[in-house]
C-alpha cells in the first residue's frame, strides 16, 4: 500500500516535467505539422544555459527561467523565420524534409555545445539539491517538488493563454484547421512563428528543469525527445490536458516497472522506446482516439 502511494506520488511529480517538455513538441506539431527533432538539442541547450547562468552569475536555476524563457522564445522565432518558413508546406501530414532539416539543426546545436562547454559531464549542485521532504509520507527530493511546481505553473499559464487570449484562440484555430483559420483572417504565418517560439521556450524551460535533477552532456536530450514523442502519440496533439494525461501514463509505467519488476534500470529506457513504437503502431489516433472519440475529430497522426 505504501509502495502504491510512493509510485503514484513519484509518477505525478515526474509527469509535470514530462508534460512541459512534451507540450513544446506538441504545439509545433499542431500548428505546423512539423516534427521538431531539434527539440532534443534545445532541451540540452536549456540545461547548459541554466548551468552557465548559475556558475557565472550565481543565478538560482529556477530564477534563471526568467532569462531562459525570453531568450529561447526569440531563438525559436529566429529558427522559424530563417529556416523552417522556407520549406514547402505540406497540408496533409508532417514532411520528411522538415524532419531532416531540424535534425541538421540538432546536430549543429550539439556541436556548438561541445565547442563551448566540452563533452564533460556537467551537473548543477545547489544548497537544496540533496535535501528531501515528505509528501503524503513519501520522501522526495526538494528539486523534484520544485520542478513539478514550476511545470504545473507553466502549464496553467499556457492554458490561460490558449483559452483566454486572441493569440491562444488563433493558435488553436490554426491547429484545428489551417485553411479555415486563414479564411477567418488569422495570420497563420505569424501564428506559426509565435508557436515555434512557444514550443522552443517550453523546451528551454524543460531543459532548465532537467538540469536541476540530472547530470548532462551535449548528447543529452535524445532519450527525453523519444519520451516526448511517446507522450504526444499517446495523448494526441491538441489539448494540454491530454498531454498531461499521457505524461502521467508514461511516468506511471516507468515507476511501476522500476518498483514492481526486476527489469534492471539500465533497460528502462529501452522499455519506453519500445512503448513509443507500440504506441505509434497500436494507437495511430492517440489514446483518446482508441476510446472512440476520434470519430468526431480525427487526428491525422500517421
Amino acid at each position: 500500500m505504501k509502495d502504491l502511494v510512493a509510485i503514484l506520488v513519484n509518477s505525478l511529480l515526474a509527469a509535470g516535467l514530462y508534460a512541459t517538455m512534451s507540450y513544446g513538441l506538441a504545439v509545433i506539431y499542431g500548428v505546423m505539422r512539423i516534427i521538431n527533432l531539434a527539440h532534443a538539442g534545445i532541451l540540452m541547450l536549456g540545461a547548459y544555459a541554466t548551468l552557465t547562468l548559475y556558475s557565472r552569475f550565481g543565478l538560482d536555476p529556477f530564477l534563471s527561467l526568467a532569462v531562459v524563457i525570453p531568450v529561447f522564445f526569440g531563438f525559436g522565432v529566429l529558427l522559424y523565420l530563417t529556416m523552417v518558413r522556407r520549406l514547402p508546406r505540406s497540408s496533409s501530414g508532417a514532411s520528411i524534409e522538415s524532419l531532416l532539416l531540424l535534425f541538421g539543426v540538432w546536430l549543429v546545436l550539439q556541436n556548438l555545445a561541445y565547442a563551448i562547454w566540452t563533452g564533460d559531464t556537467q551537473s548543477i549542485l545547489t544548497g537544496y539539491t540533496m535535501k528531501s521532504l515528505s509528501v503524503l509520507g513519501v520522501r522526495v527530493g526538494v528539486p523534484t517538488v520544485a520542478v513539478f511546481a514550476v511545470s504545473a505553473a507553466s502549464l496553467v499559464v499556457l492554458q490561460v493563454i490558449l483559452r483566454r487570449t486572441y493569440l491562444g484562440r488563433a493558435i488553436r484555430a490554426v491547429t484545428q484547421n489551417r485553411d479555415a483559420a486563414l479564411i477567418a483572417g488569422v495570420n497563420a504565418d505569424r501564428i506559426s512563428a509565435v508557436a515555434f517560439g512557444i514550443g522552443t521556450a517550453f523546451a528551454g524551460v524543460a531543459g532548465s528543469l532537467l538540469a536541476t535533477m540530472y547530470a548532462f552532456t551535449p548528447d543529452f536530450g535524445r532519450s527525453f525527445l523519444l519520451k516526448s514523442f511517446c507522450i504526444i502519440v499517446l495523448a494526441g496533439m491538441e489539448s494540454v490536458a491530454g498531454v498531461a494525461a499521457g505524461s502521467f501514463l508514461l511516468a506511471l509505467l516507468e515507476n511501476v516497472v522500476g518498483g514492481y519488476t526486476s527489469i534492471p534500470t539500465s533497460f528502462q529506457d529501452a522499455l519506453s522506446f519500445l512503448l513509443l513504437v507500440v504506441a505509434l503502431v497500436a494507437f495511430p489516433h492517440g489514446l483518446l482516439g482508441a476510446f472512440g472519440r476520434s470519430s468526431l475529430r480525427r487526428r491525422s497522426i500517421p
Partner: protein
Amino acid sequence: MRRRARSLALGAASLALLLAAPSFLERGTLNDIWNVAFAVILASAWNLLGGFAGQISIGYSAFIGIGAYTTALLALKGVNPYATLPLAALLGAAFSFVVGLPTFRLRGPYFTIATIGVSEAVRVVATGVAFTGGSSGLRMPAGSFDFTRNYASMVILAVAVVSLSAWVKNSPFGRALAAIRQDIDAAESLGVHSARYKLLAHALSAAIVAVAGSLFAINFQYISPGSVFDFRLSLSIVLMPIVGGLGTVGGPVLGALLFGYLQIKLLSSPALRDSYLFIYGGMLIAVMLFEPKGLLGLFHRLRRAAGRAVSRPVPDAG
C-alpha cells in the same frame, strides 16, 4: 541496351582496377579505399529502402551491429570468420522483419521516429546484456585478421551493391518502390502490395549492411556496443545518400566518396574532428533548404544552366 553494356563495362573495369590495386598502392591508401568502399556499401544499401522507396530509417546501426556480433561471437567459437557472412546476412534480414512488420504501418516521419526508438532500444539492450561483452566489448580471436582478403571482399561487395542498386532501379521491383515513394495510396490502389515491397527492400538492404558489419568486425578486430550500435553511425548512413542525391544510383556513391574523404581528413585533424557534427548538420540543413535532390541534383541543375548559356547565342547566329 548500349547504356547497360557501358555501365556493365564500367563496373567490371573499376572492379578489376580495385582488385589489382594492392600490387601497386601502399597500405595507407588501401585502407582509405577500404573505408570508402565500406561507406559506399552502407549508403547504397540504405538507399534501396530510404531512397527508392522513400522510407527514411535512422536505425541502420542495428544491422551493422548484428553482422559484427554474429561474426565476432562465432569466430570466438572457432568458426572461420568469412564463413559467418551468410549467417550475418540472414540474421540482419530476419531482424529487419522484426523492425519492419510493426513500423511499416507508419508513414513518413512517424516511421522515421519509430526507427530511432528501435535502434536506441537495441543499443541500450546490447550494452546491458552479457554476451556482447557489455561496454568493454569483444576482441576477435588472434589470427582472424587478413587485410588482403578483407580488402578484396569489401571491394567486391561495394561494386556488387552498386550494380544491384542500378539493376533494382530499372526493374519492376524498383518501379514498385518508386510508386510507393511517390504516392503510397495510389500505388496500393493500382495493386502494388506496399507492405510486401517495403519489407523486401528493407530485408535486402539490412542483409547487405549486416555483411558490411561483419567485414568491419574482421578488419578492426575489436567491437563494442558503443562502436557498432552507435547513433552516429546510423546518422552518417542516412546523410551520405541524402547529401549525394536520394533515390539515385550515383548519389549514394557520390555522398560516400565525400563522407569517406571527409572522415579520412577528420581523423587526421583534431580541429576538424571536433566539428564533424557541425559539418554533418550544416550539410543536412543546406541540402534541405537549397537542393533537396543533393549534389547530383545540383550537378544536373548546373549542367542545364550551362546548356542554356551555350545554346542561347545559336538563334542569334542563325
